[in-house]
C-alpha cells in the first residue's frame, strides 16, 4: 500500500526528499510532466482532455511532517533539539525516534519512575529540557554520526488495525501523507481540466512550499488535501468534534488561514450528494492548511480544503479510516470530473 510507504517515510519540514522520491515514482507514469522547484515542491502536471483554453486546477498535499531538529550535542553524546512545527512537549518523553541522514534509531530521554519524586510525575518537561539518546558514548562519537541541523521524526511503523468496519490504520505523519496518497490516486483519472498536483514542502512551518508553488502554477482553482484533526472521543457535553472517523471527507468552511470559497464548498456538497459519498464539515476555527497560502496567491485563487479525519495528529502515532480515505478520493474525483462545467 502506497499509504504505508508514505507514512513510514522520513520527512520533517525541509527534509522531504525521501517522501518526494516515493511520490515521483508513484505518479511519473500517470502524468504528463514532473518537476521539482527551488523549495522542493514536486509538481505533477496532467493535461486535460477539454478544449483549450483549459481551466487550471491545483490540488495540493504537503509532503512534510512535524519533527525535531538537532540543535545541540552535549559532552555525554546526548542530542538537544527544537521542534519543527507544532510538536506537543507532553507527547515526547521516552518515544522512539529516527535521527538524521543516517536514519539512526534513538530514544527521547525520560527519568525512570523509580527515581522520580511523586510531584515531578505530574509535571511536563519542556522541549529544551529533553534530549535524544542515540547510544553514543561521547560528544566526539555523536558528532561522527549527526551534525547540527539534522532532523528527526518518530519511529512508528504503519499497521492495519481492523480489516472490516471502519478499516482503521495506524501510523505516523497521516498529516499529510493521507493527502499525498489521495493526490496520487487522483493522478489515475482523466479530467477535462488541466490538473497540477503539488506535493508541497514546509507546510508545518508556515505554508511555505504551497505559496511559491501556487505563484508558479497560477491556478484558476485550488484544493488543499489534508489529514486533519479528529477528536471524536466520547465527551460528556453536547459539543461537536472537529471531525469524526468514518463520517467521510471533511470539508473546511473556515479556519485560521482562510475562508473557503462558497462555490467550491457547494460543488463538493453537490458532488457528494449526487454520488452518495458521505461528507462532514470540519469545525470552523482551528488549524490552517495550504489553502491559506494558495488563495492569496497573486490576484487570488478560489480555494477549499478537503481532509481525511486522523486522530492524534502531530503526535508519534495517528489512527485513520481507509473508508474515509477512499471516500475522499471518490469525492475529489467527482469534483474534478465536474469541472469546468460545475464552476460558474
Amino acid at each position, binding site marked *: 500500500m502506497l499509504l504505508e510507504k508514505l507514512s513510514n517515510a522520513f520527512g520533517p519540514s525541509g527534509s522531504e526528499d525521501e517522501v518526494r522520491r516515493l511520490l515521483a515514482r508513484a505518479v511519473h507514469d500517470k502524468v504528463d510532466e514532473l518537476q521539482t522547484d527551488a523549495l522542493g515542491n514536486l509538481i505533477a502536471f496532467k493535461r486535460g482532455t477539454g478544449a483549450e483554453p483549459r481551466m487550471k486546477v491545483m490540488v495540493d498535499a504537503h509532503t512534510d511532517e512535524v519533527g525535531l531538529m538537532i540543535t545541540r550535542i552535549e559532552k555525554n553524546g546526548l542530542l538537544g533539539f527544537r521542534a519543527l512545527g507544532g510538536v506537543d512537549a507532553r507527547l515526547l518523553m521516552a518515544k522512539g525516534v529516527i535521527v538524521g541522514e543516517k536514519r539512526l534509531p534513538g530514544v527521547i530521554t525520560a527519568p525512570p519512575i523509580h527515581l522520580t519524586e511523586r510531584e515531578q510525575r505530574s509535571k511536563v518537561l519542556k522541549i529544551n529540557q529533553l534530549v535524544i539518546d542515540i547510544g553514543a558514548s561521547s560528544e566526539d562519537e555523536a558528532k561522527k554520526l549527526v551534525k547540527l541541523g539534522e532532523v528527526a521524526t518518530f519511529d512508528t511503523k504503519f499497521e492495519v488495525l481492523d480489516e472490516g468496519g471502519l478499516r482503521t490504520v495506524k501510523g505516523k505523519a497521516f498529516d499529510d501523507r493521507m493527502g499525498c496518497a489521495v493526490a496520487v490516486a487522483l493522478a489515475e483519472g482523466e479530467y477535462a481540466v488541466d490538473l497540477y498536483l503539488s506535493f508541497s514542502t514546509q507546510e508545518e512551518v508556515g505554508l511555505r512550499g504551497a505559496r511559491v508553488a501556487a505563484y508558479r502554477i497560477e491556478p484558476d482553482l485550488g484544493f488543499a488535501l489534508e489529514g486533519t484533526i479528529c477528536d471524536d472521543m466520547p465527551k460528556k457535553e*453536547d*459539543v*461537536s468534534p472537529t471531525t469524526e472517523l468514518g463520517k467521510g471527507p471533511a470539508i473546511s*468552511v*473556515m479556519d485560521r488561514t*482562510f*475562508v*473557503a470559497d*462558497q462555490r467550491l*464548498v457547494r460543488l463538493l456538497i453537490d458532488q457528494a450528494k449526487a454520488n452518495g459519498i458521505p461528507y462532514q*464539515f470540519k*469545525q*470552523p*476555527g482551528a488549524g490552517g492548511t495550504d489553502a491559506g497560502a494558495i*488563495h*492569496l*496567491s*497573486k*490576484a*487570488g*485563487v*478560489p480555494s477549499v480544503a478537503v481532509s481525511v479525519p486522523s486522530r492524534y495528529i502531530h503526535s508519534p502515532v495517528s489512527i485513520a479510516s481507509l473508508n474515509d480515505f477512499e471516500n475522499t478520493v471518490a469525492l475529489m474525483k467527482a469534483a474534478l470530473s465536474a469541472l469546468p462545467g460545475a464552476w460558474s
Partner: protein
Amino acid sequence: MKELIEKLTEAYGPSGREEQIREIIRAEVESFVDEIRVDTMGNLIALKKGTGQGKKVMLAAHMDEIGLIISHVDEEGFLRAQRIGGVDTMTLTGGRVQFADGTVGVIAPEKRPEFRKDPDLSKLYIDIGATSRAEAADRLGQVVGFVRPFADMGQRVVSKAMDDRIGCTVLVETLRGLEGSPHDVYFVFTVQEEVGLRGAQTGAFGVDPDIGIAVDVTIAADTPEAYKMAMKLGDGPCIKVKDGRMLAHSGLKDLMIETAEANEIPYQLEVLAWGSTDAAAMQLSRGGVPAGCVSIACRYVHSPSEMVDIGDVENAVRLLLAMLAEPIEV
C-alpha cells in the same frame, strides 16, 4: 450621505460573505465609472479613468464586518459559534445576530455569574427559536453578522459595521465627486480585511497600483479613561503615520498633510498602538507600493454601536478629492 451610511451599515456582510454589500455599492457607483468588475476573491473594483499623465491610484475600503460562524448545533436546537475577526464577547450578550437569509438569533450566556468571571465565547449560545437539532441542523458552517439599527444623533452617527462601511461611504462619495483628475483611480471595495487583510492583498496584486491609500476607521481615544492616543471625533480625518503593521510612506503622508493645509481641511495625525488596515497589505504587494491611510476616528470599534462624526467623513472626502485633483509625486 447619512442615508447611504444607514443602508450600508445595516446590511449583512461578515468576512467571506460580502455579496450583499457588493451589490449595494455596485448599484450606487455603476453609472459613474468607466469599468467595474469583481475579482476572484470577491473584491469590487471600479475604475474612473483620468485625463492622462497621472498615476494609477488604488483607494481601498473593506466591505466586510466582524461576525461569528456556527460551529455546533445541540440537541435542543441551540447554536454555538466561533469568531470571524476580532469579536469582543463583552459586547455580545443580549444582542442579536442575523444570517444571510435574514433569520435572526439571540445571543445569551449559559450562566451570567460564570460568564462575568470568564467571558469566553464557549459560554455563549445563539437561540434562533428552533426546538430541535433537526430544525437547526443546516445552520452549521453558516455565518452571522450582528444586528443593531443605525442612529442619527445629528453631528454624530452610530451603527454596527461603521468599520468599514464608513470607508466604503467615503469611497462612494469620492468617486461620485471626482471630476477631471489626471489619475486613473481604482476604487477597490475589499473582502476579508477583518481576518487578515486578505482581499486587499490579492486586489493590490491585480490592480498593480503606483499609489495605495486605504480608508478605514481608527480608534478614537477621546472617551473616559481611554488609552492615551491623539485621535478625537470631530477633529478631522486622521492621516496615518503608523499602526500595528505599517509605517505609512512618509512622502505620501506629507503630501496628505500639505494638501489638507493648502485646502484648509481640518486633519489630525494618527499613531495607532495596535491594529492595521488594507494599506499594510497594499504596501507589500509585488515589489512594494507607496501606501498610506486616511482614517475616520471611531468610538467603540468592534462593538455593535460604532460612532463617528459626520464632519470627519465629509472632510475625508474633501481631502481625497483635493489630492486626486493634483499630480501625486512622493
